[in-house]
C-alpha cells in the first residue's frame, strides 16, 4: 500500500519585490535553511523547475496559462504542499516557501534501515512497512499473525513460532521493539507469539544482512516493532476479542500528553484454551496459555536541546500441557507440564541536540528473559522434573548523528553488551561481553541518487572480532522508477546454548552439549558408563566460529501508472560456518550425545515481487510472490570402483535443497472500505511444496521427500460507528486447512471483536 505519500503544511511568506517577467521564489526548511533540488511543478501544466543550491527557483510568467496557478512543491524527506499563486501579484514579489520535514508519524518514515529517520523511498535497501491500519484491519493479535501474511516470510515452528526470511531459519532474523533487541530464544527461535501487536504504530521489515548497523543476529534481516505514541492531550482505547479455542484478547491503552511530556500506557491480556492436531497424542499441539503484556513509553522535552525518553515492557505467560513417560515396566504415566515465562525490557535514553546539525543519543537497555518449566505426575503431584532458565542482557550505547550539509550525513556509535545466564543446563553461569563500534555515512548529491556506507566492529570476550561492512545505493532515473542495490556482511555469534549447554532430556534420554562443555560432558557420561561409542574423537573437534554471510540485494520500484506500485528484489546470500547439531557419541540407552559444529556452506537466493494496486480510494489490492532457492553444500567422500573393480576414493561436492523451504510462496490481499463505515478484507497465503522428512537420511531433500503445499484464506468484516467504536468479525483459515506438521495452523478460527476509542 503506497498511497499518496505526502501530506502538506506550508508557509508562504511575502518578502520583497523581484523581476517582472518571472515568478521568483526560495524554498527553505522550517529553520530557514535553503533547500536544493526541490521539485516545483505548475499544476495542470507541463512546466516544472528545480531549486538551486541556494534554494532559489524561477518560473517564466509567459508560459503560464492562467491567472491563478497552483505550485506543487515537493522534496524527498519533506511534506509536499500546494501553493496558490496569483500571477499578477506574484510578479512583484519573491515567494518564500517553507517545507516541513516529513514527520515520524507518517507510515513512510522508517528507522531500521539506517538508524536515522528516513523516508522509505529514500533508502537503498529493501524495507517494507506494515502499518497499524493493516494490522488492525487484518485482525492480528500477535507478531506472528502479521508476519505470516508478508511476502517472502514463512512461519516455521520449532520450540515456538519463528519466521523464515530469505530462506534463513528464525535464528538469523533480529527482532526488535523500538530499536532494542528482544531476547530469549529457545533452540534459536524467538517465539513471535510473545509480542502483541496492539498499540503498534508500524512494523518495519528490513531484508538482507544488517549487521553493519545492528550487530549479531541481523544476518537474514531485521524486524522492528515501533510502538504507538499518541500526541493527543488525552486518549484511551479498549479492545476485546473472543474466538475459537476460547481465545480471548483484552487490550487497554491510555495516553496523557502535555506539550513537553508524553505518556503512553498499554496493557494486554491474551489467553487461549489451545488445540490439538494429533488426537492420539496426550499433549496438545498448542497448549492452554494466558499471558499479559504491559508497556509504558514516556518522553520529556526538558528544553530545545535535551529530551528524555523511556520504554518499559513486561510480559509474562503461563502455559499448561500434558505429556507422558513410559516407565521401565512399560506402563505410561501422565505428566502435567506447567511452563512460566516472562521477559522485561527497560530502555531509558537521553537525546541531546547541542545545535541543529548534531544529535547525540545515550541509551541504556536492561532486559531479562526467564522461564520456569515443571513436570509433575498427574495424580500424585510429585515433581518429575523442573528446569529454570534466566537470561540477563544489558546494553549501554552512545550514538551521534551529524549533518555536514545537505549532501552528507554521518553517524557514529559505540557501546557494550553484557550477557549472563542462570540455568542448570549452564552450570558455570556463563557470561560474556561484546564491545561494538559502528559508523555510517550517507552521501546524497541530488534527490535522485544516494550512496550509504556503513561499518561495524564487534569484539567478543570469547571469540575473534567481527567486522561487518555494508554499502547501499539508490538511483531514481525518472519519477516512475527507482533502483536499489546493496551488499553487505552479516554475522551471528555462537549462542549461549551452542557454547555452554549441558543438557540431558529426561523424557527422551538424549544429551546436548555446547562446544565449551562437550569435553567435560563426554568425560562425565563416560565415567557414568552411559557411552556405548564415541563417534567423533574429542581431539578432532575444532573451536566453533561465528556464522557469517555475504549478501547482495538488487531491485527496483516502478509506478507504471499512479495507482500501481511494483516492487522487485533479487537476493543472494552466501553463508559459511553455519552451526548445526550433530551426534558425537552414542549412549547405552540408544540415544545420542550431540554437540555443535560449523556446517560448511549454504546459499539462499531468489526473487521477490510485490504488486500493489489502488483500484479506488477505498479499494486496495496486492499480490506478493517469492521464488526461493536455498541449498546447502554437501561434500561426500565416496569410495567407488575403477574399471577393474578396485577401490578408489573420490570427493563429490554438490549443493542440495534444504528442508522446510518452499520454492514458491505468495500472498493475495484485498481491502475494501465503504464510507458508511463498513470494511471488508480477504487475505490468502500460499505456501508451495517443501521438504519435511529426510526419509533416506542423506541430509538433503530428494525429489520424493516433498510435502504438498497449501493455501489458507482469512476473511474479516468490520463496521465503524462515529469514528469511536469498531465492530469486527472474521475467520482465519476459513477453508479449515490443518496439517499436524504445521502446528501454528489450528484450523478455522472464528472471532468477534469490539474496539472503542475515547
Amino acid at each position, binding site marked *: 500500500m503506497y498511497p499518496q505519500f505526502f501530506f502538506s503544511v506550508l508557509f508562504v511568506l511575502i518578502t520583497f519585490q523581484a523581476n517582472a517577467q518571472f515568478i521568483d521564489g526560495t524554498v527553505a526548511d522550517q529553520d530557514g535553511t535553503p533547500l536544493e533540488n526541490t521539485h516545483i511543478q505548475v499544476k495542470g501544466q507541463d512546466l516544472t523547475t528545480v531549486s538551486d543550491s541556494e534554494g532559489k527557483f524561477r518560473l517564466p510568467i509567459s508560459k503560464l496559462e492562467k491567472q491563478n496557478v497552483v505550485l506543487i512543491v515537493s522534496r524527498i524527506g519533506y511534506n509536499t504542499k500546494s501553493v496558490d499563486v496569483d500571477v499578477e501579484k506574484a510578479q512583484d514579489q519573491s515567494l518564500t516557501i517553507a517545507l516541513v520535514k516529513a514527520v515520524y508519524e507518517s507510515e513512510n518514515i522508517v528507522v531500521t534501515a539506517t538508524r536515522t529517520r528516513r523516508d522509505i523511498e529514500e533508502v537503498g535497501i529493501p524495507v517494507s512497512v506494515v502499518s497499524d491500519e493493516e494490522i488492525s484491519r487484518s485482525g492480528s493479535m500477535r507478531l506472528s499473525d502479521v508476519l505470516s501474511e508478508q511476502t517472502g516470510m514463512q512461519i516455521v515452528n520449532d520450540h515456538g513460532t519463528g519466521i523464515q526470511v530469505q530462506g534463513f531459519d528464525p535464528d538469523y532474523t533480529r527482532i526488535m521493539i523500538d530499536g532494542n533487541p528482544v531476547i530469549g530464544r529457545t533452540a534459536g527461535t524467538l517465539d513471535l507469539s510473545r509480542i502483541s501487536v496492539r498499540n503498534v504504530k508500524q512494523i518495519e521489515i528490513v531484508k538482507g544482512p544488517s549487521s553493519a548497523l545492528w550487530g549479531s543476529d541481523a544476518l537474514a534481516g531485521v524486524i522492528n516493532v515501533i510502538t504507538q505514541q499518541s500526541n493527543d492531550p488525552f486518549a484511551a482505547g479498549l479492545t476485546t476479542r473472543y474466538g475459537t479455542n476460547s481465545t480471548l484478547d483484552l487490550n487497554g491503552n491510555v495516553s496523557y500528553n502535555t506539550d513537553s511530556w508524553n505518556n503512553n500506557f498499554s496493557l494486554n491480556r491474551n489467553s487461549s484454551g489451545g488445540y490439538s492436531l494429533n488426537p492420539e497424542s496426550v499433549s496438545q499441539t498448542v497448549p492452554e496459555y494466558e499471558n499479559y503484556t504491559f508497556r509504558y513509553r514516556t518522553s520529556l522535552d526538558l528544553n530545545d536541546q535535551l529530551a528524555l525518553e523511556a520504554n518499559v515492557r513486561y510480559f509474562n505467560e503461563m502455559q499448561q500441557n500434558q505429556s507422558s513417560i513410559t516407565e521401565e515396566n512399560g506402563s505410561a504415566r501422565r505428566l502435567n507440564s506447567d511452563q512460566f515465562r516472562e521477559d522485561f525490557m527497560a530502555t531509558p535514553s537521553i537525546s541531546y541536540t547541542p545545535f541543529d546539525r548534531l544529535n547525540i543519543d545515550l541509551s541504556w537497555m536492561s532486559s531479562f528473559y526467564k522461564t520456569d518449566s515443571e513436570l509433575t505426575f498427574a495424580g500424585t503431584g510429585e515433581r518429575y522434573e523442573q528446569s529454570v532458565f534466566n537470561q540477563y542482557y544489558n546494553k549501554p550505547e552512545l550514538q551521534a548523528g551529524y549533518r555536514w550539509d545537505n549532501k552528507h550525513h554521518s553517524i557514529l556509535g559505540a557501546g557494550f553488551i553484557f550477557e549472563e545466564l542462570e540455568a542448570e543446563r549452564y552450570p558455570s553461569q556463563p557470561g560474556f561481553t561484546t564491545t561494538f563500534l559502528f559508523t555510517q555515512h550517507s552521501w546524497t548529491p541530488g534527490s535522485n541518487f544516494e550512496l550509504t556506507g556503513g561499518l561495524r566492529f564487534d569484539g567478543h570476550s570469547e571469540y575473534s572480532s567481527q567486522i561487518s561492512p555494508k554499502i547501499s545505493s539508490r538511483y531514481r532515473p525518472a519519477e516512475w522508477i527507482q533502483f536499489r542495490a546493496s551488499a553487505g556482511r552479516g554475522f551471528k555469534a555462537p549462542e549461549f546454548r551452542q557454547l555452554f549447554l549441558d543438557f540431558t532430556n529426561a523424557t527422551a534420554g538424549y544429551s546436548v552439549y555446547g562446544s565449551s562443555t562437550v569435553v567435560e560432558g563426554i568425560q562425565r557420561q563416560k565415567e557414568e558408563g552411559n557411552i556405548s561409542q564415541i563417534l567423533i574423537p574429542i581431539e578432532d573437534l575444532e573451536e566453533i566460529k561465528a556464522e557469517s554471510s555475504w549478501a547482495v540485494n538488487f531491485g527496483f520500484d516502478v509506478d507504471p501508472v499512479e495507482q500501481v506500485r511494483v516492487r522487485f528484489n533479487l537476493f543472494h546470500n552466501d553463508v559459511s560456518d553455519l552451526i548445526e547439531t550433530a*551426534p558425537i557419541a552414542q549412549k547405552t540407552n540408544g540415544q545420542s550425545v550431540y554437540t555443535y559444529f560449523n556446517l560448511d556452506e549454504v546459499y539462499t537466493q531468489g526473487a521477490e515481487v510485490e504488486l500493489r494496486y489502488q483500484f479506488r480510494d477505498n479499494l486496495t489490492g496486492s499480490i506478493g510472490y517469492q521464488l526461493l532457492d536455498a541449498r546447502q553444500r554437501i561434500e561426500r567422500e565416496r569410495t567407488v*570402483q575403477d574399471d577393474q*573393480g578396485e*577401490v578408489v576414493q573420490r570427493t563429490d561436492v554438490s549443493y542440495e535443497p534444504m528442508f522446510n523451504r518452499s520454492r514458491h510462496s505468495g500472498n493475495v490481499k484485498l481491502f475494501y472500505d465503504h464510507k458508511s463505515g463498513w470494511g471488508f478484507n480477504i487475505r490468502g497465503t500460499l505456501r508451495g511444496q517443501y521438504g519435511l522428512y*529426510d*526419509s533416506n*537420511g*542423506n541430509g538433503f531433500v530428494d525429489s520424493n521427500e516433498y510435502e504438498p503445499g497449501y493455501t489458507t484464506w482469512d476473511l474479516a468484516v468490520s463496521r465503524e460507528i462515529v469514528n469511536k467504536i469498531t465492530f469486527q468479525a472474521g475467520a482465519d483459515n476459513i477453508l479449515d486447512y490443518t496439517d499436524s506438521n504445521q502446528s501454528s495452523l489450528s484450523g478455522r478460527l472464528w472471532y468477534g471483536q469490539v474496539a472503542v476509542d475515547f
Partner: protein
Amino acid sequence: MFNKYQTSLSLIIVSLALLVSACSDSTSGVEEPISEVEVQKVEDLEATGENGEYTFFSLRSGQEVAHGDSATTEWDVAFNGTTIRFNGGVSGPGDGGALLLDVPFDEVSTAPTEGYYTDTDDSLAVPTGGGNGWYTYTGRSNPPHAVLPIEDRTIVLETADGEHYAKLKIISYYKGNPDTSTDEFANLETRPDSKYYTFRYAVQMTEGLRELN
C-alpha cells in the same frame, strides 16, 4: 524361524560371455570356472539381542546360524542393534572381511581384489555411528531419532571361509520395512520396532570368482 526369510529371487547366472571368451581364447585346455551368483532378500531378521548377543547369518546357505555355532566359520555376518560384524579378526575364527562402497547395489558388478578390513578391537570393518558405516542417524531432524540406511552404500565382503565374495545392502532397520516418509514413522509412538533387518545380498558361489552380477 525360517519363515522369516523369503527367497524372493534366486537365480543362477551362467556367464555366457565368459564361456565364449574361454572357448575362443583356447590357449590352454583348462576350463574356466562358471560364475554362479545367488541373490536373496532377507526380511525382518531380528537383531534385538539386549545383552549383546548377536544374530548370526550365513550368506552361503541363506540361513540363520545357531548361536552355539558362533565360534565356527558357519556364519558370515552377525547383527546386534546397529552393529554388523564379519567372521574374521576379533569377531570370529574365519577369514572374512568387508569394505564399503558408495556404489548402488546393482552397479557393483565385480568385487575388488583388495581393501577388505577385518574387525578389530579399535574399529569394525563396517564402523558404527551415524554416517560412518551403513546408516545415518537423523537426530533431531525429521524423521527424528531414526536409523536410515545410507543410499547407494553397498557392503562388499569375503565370506568366513575366505573363498567367496558377496555384496550386501541394508534396506531397513525397522520391522516390516516401513515407508520412512510418513507421519506414522516420524512419530516415535507409532514407529515400528527397530533392530529388524531387511537386506538384500548377492553371493558368488564359485570360489575365487569376483563377479557379483
